[in-house]
């Protein structure tokens, strides 16, 4: 049997013909990186090939690395295998990887979402024979509302907290979610304060997109500065002494997991907003359909379940 164009190995997805890995989780010589999240762009590879907008992000995270920036749709060939990157709509600079060899086309999505978030370049469906898709939220229970509705709920929540003289603390990952929230927060309500991790990452992204002004919380920030304003913080800050100084406050989290009533309570957060940078169930089904792929392989999340359903849809 001939070696598949892309195979799953203990270092990650591997293209033997070109000797290149996609999002490897162990150090390799040549890595094509879909996006800047830590589980996709790891430390220690000799060479990083990625979309040029992702370079400042991974350089910020990984320090000095050897990297090559690629434009959407630009083809580069390694040992007769043609590679190109297409937007994944997940976060700024996030790509799908299209791999073509002797007429066979495989696409690896990395993380992606079908909704245009107004910040990252919107997802594009790419025709292929084999579609390797993430399916973090590959269950029919996951259905996203248009982001506009969720974001206006978030602003209303901020306003209500302000009316009660409280500080709003909103949790979101420091790369991606935090900026998506930041972009649409209503600065008419108050000042947007940030945790250091979010402030630093936002500084990296400011040349790539426009965001409202933020104020870093420092030792000089006093207790009376915060009430009525909002603080963007990474989930890891929840329950820390850094947060406890902000009393009186109300907490909220914005993530796909907030779909479940129990999730908010388990995390001891006051309010949950369902806002995800991944596809929901319909998004997955429609993108699979649009690729026209004969074979669908799922990674992440409830992948066994999703592999089964997508196989059945084909029938």
């Amino acid at each position, binding site marked *: 049997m001939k070696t598949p164009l892309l195979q799953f190995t203990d270092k990650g997805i591997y293209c033997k013909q070109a000797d290149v890995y996609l999002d490897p989780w162990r150090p390799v010589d040549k890595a094509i990186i879909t996006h800047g999240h830590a589980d996709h762009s790891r430390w220690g590879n000799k060479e990083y090939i990625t979309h040029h907008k992702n370079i400042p992000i991974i350089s910020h995270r990984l320090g000095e690395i050897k990297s090559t920036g690629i434009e959407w749709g630009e083809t580069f060939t390694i040992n007769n295998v043609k590679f190109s990157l297409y937007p994944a709509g997940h976060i700024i600079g996030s790509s799908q990887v299209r791999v073509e060899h002797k007429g066979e086309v495989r696409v690896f999505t990395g993380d992606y979402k079908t909704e245009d978030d107004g910040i990252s370049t919107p997802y594009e469906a790419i025709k292929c024979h084999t579609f390797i898709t993430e399916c973090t939220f590959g269950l*029919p*229970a996951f*259905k996203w509302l248009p982001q506009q509705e969720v974001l206006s709920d978030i602003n209303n929540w901020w306003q209500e907290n302000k009316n009660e003289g409280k500080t709003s603390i909103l949790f979101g990952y420091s790369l991606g979610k935090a900026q998506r929230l930041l972009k649409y927060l209503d600065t008419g309500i108050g000042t947007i304060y940030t945790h250091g991790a979010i402030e630093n990452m936002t500084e990296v992204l400011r040349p790539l997109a426009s965001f409202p002004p933020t104020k870093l919380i420092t030792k000089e920030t006093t207790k009376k500065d915060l009430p009525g304003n909002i603080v963007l913080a990474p989930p890891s800050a929840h329950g820390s002494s850094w947060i406890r100084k902000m009393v009186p406050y109300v907490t909220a989290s914005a993530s796909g997991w907030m779909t479940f009533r129990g999730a908010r309570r388990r995390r*001891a957060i*006051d*309010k949950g907003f369902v806002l995800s940078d991944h596809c929901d169930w319909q998004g997955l089904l429609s993108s699979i359909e649009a690729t026209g792929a004969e074979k669908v392989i799922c990674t992440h999340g*409830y992948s066994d379940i999703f592999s089964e359903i997508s196989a059945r849809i084909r029938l």
Partner: protein
Amino acid sequence: MKRFAQLIKTLDSTNKTNVKVDALTQYFLEAGDTDKVWTIAILSHRRPPRPVNTTLLREWASELANIPLWLFEESYHIVGDLAETIALVVPSSQSSTNKTLTLFLNEMIALKKKKDTDKKAYLFENWKVLNYYERFVFTKLITGGFRIGVSQKLMTRALAKATEIDEDILAYKLMGNWDPNTISFQQLVLEENKNDYLSKPYPFYLGLCFGRNS
């Protein structure tokens, strides 16, 4: 029902006791009398018997959601709550209901005696028009057991705030056997009943004497 669903949503979205008590108090000030009686009944585990068994609920929900039963079961396994799973997988609706909580419960009581085809039609009709939270509450009323962190004591405290009747007296009134179908809010809560005082054990009586002024 709209108001009741809103109450459940508020109770559901906070861990703070005072926010829960305030939400319940507000509800008891605003809701209609029969709805209030049913709400007290539901929060004190006096819901009507389950009109549809859960096997049928699962089959019908997966049919309406247009997904195979095994995929519904997988979702249920992850979500952990049947009513919540159903509310999540059936197609979403932005509309809302004008029917009262009392009307829904009366329909559910009548539903128990009906044929399966009628039960299915009833569920489909409501699942299709109710919005997410109403659908969740509607299904929860059928499957039973609201676990939303509201103890009977907490509910009684809110009712006391809304009616200005002493909490201990209310606790006593709500004890024992009463049927939400036949009792009025007046009889259950408001009416002064000599028995409330006579048969009271001593500590309750003390509560009454001091409670009014404090």
